[in-house]
């Protein structure tokens, strides 16, 4: 061989080897890249594929015979839930129709903690808006009570704001599957990951039209694009999409892919939240679970896939109708439905149930509720595991509390303009059902957007005279009665550190000898401290601890006049013992926690413990009623209801204004003050009592009594609260006193101040 030939051969070899090396390198890189994509697909598809937000719900609303629907606010509640008022018997879930004697409600399906209730029509017979009978679906069966679904008060999202209700393929109706395949990918079960025929068809159509009119993507490709990639229109993205689709088809069956597709597909928008999956879309558009969808609804959903916002019935009814009819026509052409089905369905209007954006109703309460379960479910986890958290919140009472707080503070600032400077006034309200401990409303501040600091649970302030009832409770236990005479005079108490504590009355006025009922009703410091000293301060601390007041650092005499720090929730916890006639109930904010399959994970039960003799609490309640009638709380008489028991509280230098009171089983505590702890110059009666009065007025009208009505065995006599004697006709302030035993009234004499003997004495003079 010549030298030239040898050189040629070696060059050729080099080229071949280089080519081989390049091919090997590319092949290796390609293999690695495909492995990387495969790992991405498998990891995502095998693990938790989606973040399902956890939802926080208010308490469901019970309707039963005897309930006044108007006063209860049912119609308002239905509207808040997004129910539409229709003319005629409702045909869609999420609507209601009212006549003079009948109320039809087509309820949406809902997963209650106790059971799943499908969408159903109920008929409520009423007379003057008072429920007479409740019947399920055209007189089939009578219901003893009806639960209206709770309102979603918060959705706890993870990284994405997506709502999704997971379904299995078995749950997806056949019509929806046929409609989806007909309009999106007819040969889904025939082709592989890529549909080359479809690609060629789309390519030729687009070439003729000189624009992109049709895509050739399969359902698998669509799923891959939504799940793993962006919507960027590029060859690289298309390339990745194709590879990942092939990987997906390699590892999963067609049914698996279709199921994942149905849980991923984007189907609309609810404010800032995206609706994903047919499960959630069925509830969002039709108020029913996906299994219950009719042919026309399936066709509409399938039609939405291409452009959910353009074809949404909430945005463009005509576009939705046309798109749905196109899907129906396609189904008919493919012989998936009969002619009669097509003709009948195409004539039906598109009906969607409507939705409400769900304003943040109780953000402070939601924060508090989440804290209760943070040990089990941290906030980050809640955003992805799809829990349903059922709380105790009463939406109406929450609204009343929020409005009363806002209006009350605005009025105070309007009347005292100096209070609006430097951040303005703040307030906190908590309403509790005393017999069960359920929190019905919680407003932790004026505006959550400005300050998320929850003043109900986190603001510890001096409660002032709110703790005085502890002293009088201890006295009643020791055998004192409402008419026991006390000395209201200046008092000095020697403390353990050698100093002397000398509390004074408001305005430094002392009334001398007063009956016990007057001392508490008029909040007399002198009489209270003398009484506490006589009983022994340790007894009062022990009683306070037993009733739920924290021990330890508050074991100082000044505690009885409120020289300690407590939050409104602490005060509510304490007063709930009085309001419930001696029971200490655990404060409840969450009742049930369900997982996304509807299985109950946690349930908080009602727990109670008798910490005070009910008879003693009955007497104390009577004294606190006197306080709202004649004493420091007498401003309540202008609110049109009687029988409220309550106590005002004003801290030193008028920095904090309080009112804690209860009526018919509902206990509310209101605090007004400033975050910078500056003086507000207002008492509890001036600042907090009006807010309390507004809330309780609405509760009194709009909610049935939850008070305990039972025949009391205690002795009752009319007394004069000024003298402590048995009342005469002339006594200006008579009160029906309650006594623990008849021995307590044996020593009582007729009122010496207002009877005709005093007239005789003055006449003789």
């Amino acid at each position, binding site marked *: 061989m010549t030298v030239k030939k040898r050189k040629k051969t070696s060059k050729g070899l080099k080229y071949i080897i280089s080519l081989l090396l390049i091919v090997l390198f590319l092949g290796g890189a390609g293999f690695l890249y495909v492995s990387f994509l495969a790992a991405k697909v498998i990891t995502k598809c095998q693990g938790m594929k989606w973040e399902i937000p956890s939802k926080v719900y208010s308490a469901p609303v*019970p309707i*039963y*015979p*005897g*309930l006044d629907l108007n006063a209860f606010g049912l119609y308002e509640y239905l509207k808040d839930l997004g129910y539409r008022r229709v003319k005629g018997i409702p045909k869609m879930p999420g609507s209601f129709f009212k006549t003079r004697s009948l109320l039809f409600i087509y309820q949406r399906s809902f997963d209650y*903690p*106790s059971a799943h209730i499908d969408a159903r029509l109920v008929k409520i017979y009423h007379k003057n808006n*008072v429920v007479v009978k409740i019947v399920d679906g055209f007189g089939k069966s009578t219901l*003893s*009570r009806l639960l209206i679904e709770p309102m979603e008060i918060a959705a706890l999202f993870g990284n994405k704001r997506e709502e999704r209700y997971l379904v299995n393929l078995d749950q997806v109706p056949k019509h929806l599957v046929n409609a989806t395949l007909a309009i999106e990918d007819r040969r889904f079960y025939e082709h592989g990951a890529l549909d080359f025929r479809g690609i060629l068809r789309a390519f030729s159509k687009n070439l003729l039209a000189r624009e992109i009119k049709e895509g050739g993507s399969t359902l698998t490709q669509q799923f891959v694009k939504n799940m793993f990639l962006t919507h960027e229109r590029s060859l690289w993205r298309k390339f990745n999409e194709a590879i990942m689709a092939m990987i997906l088809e390699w590892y999963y069956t067609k049914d698996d892919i279709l199921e994942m597709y149905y849980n991923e597909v984007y189907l609309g928008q609810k404010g800032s939240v995206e609706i994903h999956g047919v499960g959630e879309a069925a509830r969002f558009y039709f108020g029913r679970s996906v299994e219950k969808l009719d042919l026309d609804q399936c066709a509409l959903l399938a039609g939405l896939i291409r452009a959910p916002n353009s074809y949404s019935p909430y945005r463009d009814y005509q576009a939705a109708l046309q798109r749905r009819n196109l899907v129906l026509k396609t189904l008919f052409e493919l012989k998936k439905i009969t002619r009669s089905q097509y003709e009948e369905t195409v004539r039906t209007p598109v009906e969607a149930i409507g939705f409400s954006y769900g304003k943040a109703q109780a953000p402070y309460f939601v924060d508090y509720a989440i804290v209760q379960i943070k040990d089990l479910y941290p906030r980050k986890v809640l955003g992805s595991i799809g829990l349903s958290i059922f709380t105790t919140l009463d939406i109406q009472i929450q609204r009343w509390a929020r409005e009363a707080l806002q209006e009350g503070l605005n009025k105070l600032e309007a009347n005292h303009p100096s209070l609006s400077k430097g951040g303005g006034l703040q307030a906190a309200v908590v309403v509790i*059902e005393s*017999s*069960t401990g*359920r929190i019905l409303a919680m407003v932790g501040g004026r505006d959550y957007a400005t300050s998320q600091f929850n003043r109900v649970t986190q603001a510890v302030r001096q409660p002032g005279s709110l703790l005085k009832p502890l002293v009088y409770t201890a006295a009643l236990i020791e055998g004192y009665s409402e008419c026991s005479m006390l000395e209201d005079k200046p008092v000095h108490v020697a403390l353990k550190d050698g100093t002397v504590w000398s509390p004074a009355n408001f305005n430094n006025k002392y009334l001398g000898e007063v009956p016990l009922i007057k001392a508490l009703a008029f909040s007399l410091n002198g009489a209270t401290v003398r009484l506490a000293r006589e009983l022994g301060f340790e007894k009062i601390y022990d009683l306070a601890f037993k009733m739920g007041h924290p021990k330890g650092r508050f074991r100082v005499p000044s505690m009885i006049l409120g020289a300690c720090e407590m939050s409104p929730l602490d005060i509510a916890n304490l007063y709930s013992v009085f309001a419930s*006639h001696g*029971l200490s109930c655990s404060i409840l904010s969450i009742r049930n926690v369900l997982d996304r399959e509807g299985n109950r994970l946690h*349930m908080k*039960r*009602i*727990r*109670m*413990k*008798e910490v005070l003799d*009910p008879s003693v609490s009955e007497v104390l309640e009577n004294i606190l009623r006197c306080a709202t009638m004649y004493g420091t709380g007498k401003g309540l008489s202008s609110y049109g209801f009687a029988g409220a028991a309550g106590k005002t509280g004003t801290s030193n230098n008028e920095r904090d204004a309080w009112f804690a009171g209860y009526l018919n*089983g509902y206990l509310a505590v209101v605090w007004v003050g400033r975050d910078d702890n500056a003086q507000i110059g207002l008492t509890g009666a001036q600042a907090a009592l009006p807010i309390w009065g507004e809330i309780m007025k609405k509760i009194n009208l709009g909610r*049935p*009594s*939850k*008070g*305990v*009505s*039972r*025949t*009391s*065995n205690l002795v009752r006599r009319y007394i004069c609260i000024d003298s402590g004697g048995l009342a005469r006709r002339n006594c200006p302030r008579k009160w029906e006193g309650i006594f623990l035993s008849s021995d307590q009234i044996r020593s009582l004499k007729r009122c010496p101040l207002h009877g005709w003997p005093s007239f005789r004495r003055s006449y003789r003079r």
Partner: protein
Amino acid sequence: MRIILNLLFVSALFLAPLMTGCAKKEIHYYSPPSIDFAPLPKPSLPHYGTTQKMVINGKEMLEKGEIEKALDIFEEAYTLDPSNPWPVFYLSKTWATKGNYEEAREFAKRAKWLFSDNRDGEIISLRQEAYCLKALGYISESRELLEKARELER
């Protein structure tokens, strides 16, 4: 003849108390009443009927052994109408069935207070509380309550 009759009469006077004293005292803690058996305090609240029906449903659940469902129903009935002692009484029974006697005792005490002018209701609540106390090991307190119940029965 007269002497024999007198002797018989006197012996009967002496023997009768002894015979009753020898009878074995069975301790009945409680016998579950039917819902209609004891008239309740005046039903002043409109949802009294609703809560009574719920108590009947709850009883059925309890008899079937579905304790959690029974608790759900009784708690809901109690929430609707805290004046009605029957949900409270059955909450006590259900907690006792579950083995939680502390809770059961508290509910029994409450039921007793709510059955204020209802002697039969008081009796069954006393017995229920006595049963719980016995289960908790407070035998003497339990016997005291049973005695009270017997006194009321007389």
